[in-house]
């Protein structure tokens, strides 16, 4: 009955919420408040469509897709009302040497267009293939490749070739 369904969905939500939140923090370049909103919306949709989600081959990937699309829809709405984020968003404290990497990387991500950021997160955080990334973004593989090249070039400029150095100063 519904309760079984609700339980299964709740278990899934609790199990995935942490991962989705981390992905959302990268997508939003460290805007933890927006990240929370995005995860809430994502899990809300998962909850409504749980029948479909639970039948999906990979429910976790499905949720990630919903998150990415929710993020992009949010960006579209925001750009349509021309609200820009001038001030650095609220960021939780990071410990030790990671703090430099964190600030630098989030700043760099924040300078990418939203869709490019989504490509970077899907490709290099979610380890999705070009084809899978294209699928999530409803874009062609060629378009994803173009964005990927552009984003990597920009990040290399901003972060330097040797990103890793920040992690272990």
């Amino acid at each position, binding site marked *: *009955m519904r309760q*079984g369904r*609700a339980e299964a969905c709740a278990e899934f*939500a609790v199990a995935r*919420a942490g991962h989705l939140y981390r992905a959302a923090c*990268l997508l939003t370049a460290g805007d933890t408040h927006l990240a929370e909103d995005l*995860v809430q919306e994502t899990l809300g949709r998962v909850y409504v469509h749980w029948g479909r989600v639970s039948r999906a081959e990979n429910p976790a990937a499905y949720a990630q897709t919903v998150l990415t699309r929710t993020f992009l829809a949010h960006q579209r709405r925001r750009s349509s009302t021309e609200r820009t984020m001038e001030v650095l968003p609220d960021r939780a404290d990071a410990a030790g040497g990671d703090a430099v990497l964190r600030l630098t990387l989030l700043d760099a991500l924040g300078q990418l267009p939203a869709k490019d950021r989504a490509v970077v997160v899907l490709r290099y955080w979610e380890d999705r293939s070009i084809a899978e990334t294209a699928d999530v973004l409803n874009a062609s593989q060629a378009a994803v490749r173009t964005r990927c*090249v552009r984003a990597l070039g920009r990040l290399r400029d901003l972060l330097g070739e040797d990103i890793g150095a920040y992690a272990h100063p």
Partner: protein
Amino acid sequence: MPVEQQSDPFEEHPFEERLSTALHQVGGTFHGDRAALSAAGAAHGRRLRTRRRAAFVSGAAGVALAGVGGVLVVPWDGSSAARPSSVAAAPHPATSSPSTAAVGEKEVIRTLEQLLPKGTFSNEDGRGAGQDPDTRPYASVVYDDGKGPAALSVSVDRVEPGGRQARELTQCPDRTLVPYDACVIDRLPDGSAFMVLQGYEYPDRRVDTKLWTANLVTPGGRSVSVREWNAAAEKGAPVSRAEPPLSPAQLKHLTTAQEWRRIADAIPDSPRKRAEQPSAPTGGTAADTLSGLLPKGVEVVKKSGGDDAEYAYVVVDDGRGRSLVQVNVQPDMRDVADDLFHPGDETLADGTRIAVQQGPDEKGVDGVLMWTVDTMRADGKRVVVTAFNSATQHSAATRSTPALTMQQMREMALSPKWWQGA
């Protein structure tokens, strides 16, 4: 840079590898409150969804709700009146709990096992009470009395005495919405309300797994729910015996045991603000309004009872077969408007948005159609009219299409009568 290179890009592109490592390192520094996030997600989802039946809370409600959040925790003083939110949001004085001794999960499981007739136990799972105010004590076991393994669970909760949840736990569900073999309600000498329902795991009976549920709500709002199946798991396990192991009388004995009340007392008061339910949309019930708005020429064969202002159904017959018609009436749904309506949907001059859908009922029996007209006024008031070409949500089609046309459903949904007196 040759990004079309797809085989092992990291070997070719050390920057990409370092980027990936950096993303994982930085991503890992963000720690969201998983429980809060999932609870907020569930609350968001609930607002998106319309109900497909009069609320019927079965035994696992406590478990399910504890998981999905939005749990209404009633102050232990037993007051049924809503506290002002400013007070509810403040920490409760410690004196408001009669007993705050924590109960561990092992104790909940042991309590269940000791109250059951002789048998063997496996797959024990449980949750204690006393730490997290949103956690509900719970135990589940696979119990075998020698006649076949059966899943059996108990959950303990607190509900508002006399509130909607308390009523729903101890009322037999409407057979139009949930099929079952038997349901008995009882009032115990101490004033507790009790219900035993002999029903099925799957309302459409695609698998004949039986689910028997017993719910108890004490006058003070302690609630105990026991569920048992005639299979080793609620879903996905073959039927292992003709019936669940405990008879209705044994279920009652288990559910009413004093031990559960002590465990209920261990549930701490929650500082969480009581979920503010917007007030009922109309002066009357949704069932009355729905009946009043039906077009001429259809006869109402059956309608939902109760005093629900937000959900109602009627079964109508226009002489060519029965048809179930449901309505959901929701007061302010502006926050989820973008999830419900899309840019291509119709918008009336007054700002009312309309989304229509005609298709197979995904959750129903093959051949059953579900037609929906979803409307939301500019002030967020939402009315969703849904019609089926079957007489219940779990039976075969009785006719080729629902008894109402989309135009008729639209007129009903847009009627100002839903909001009169609001």
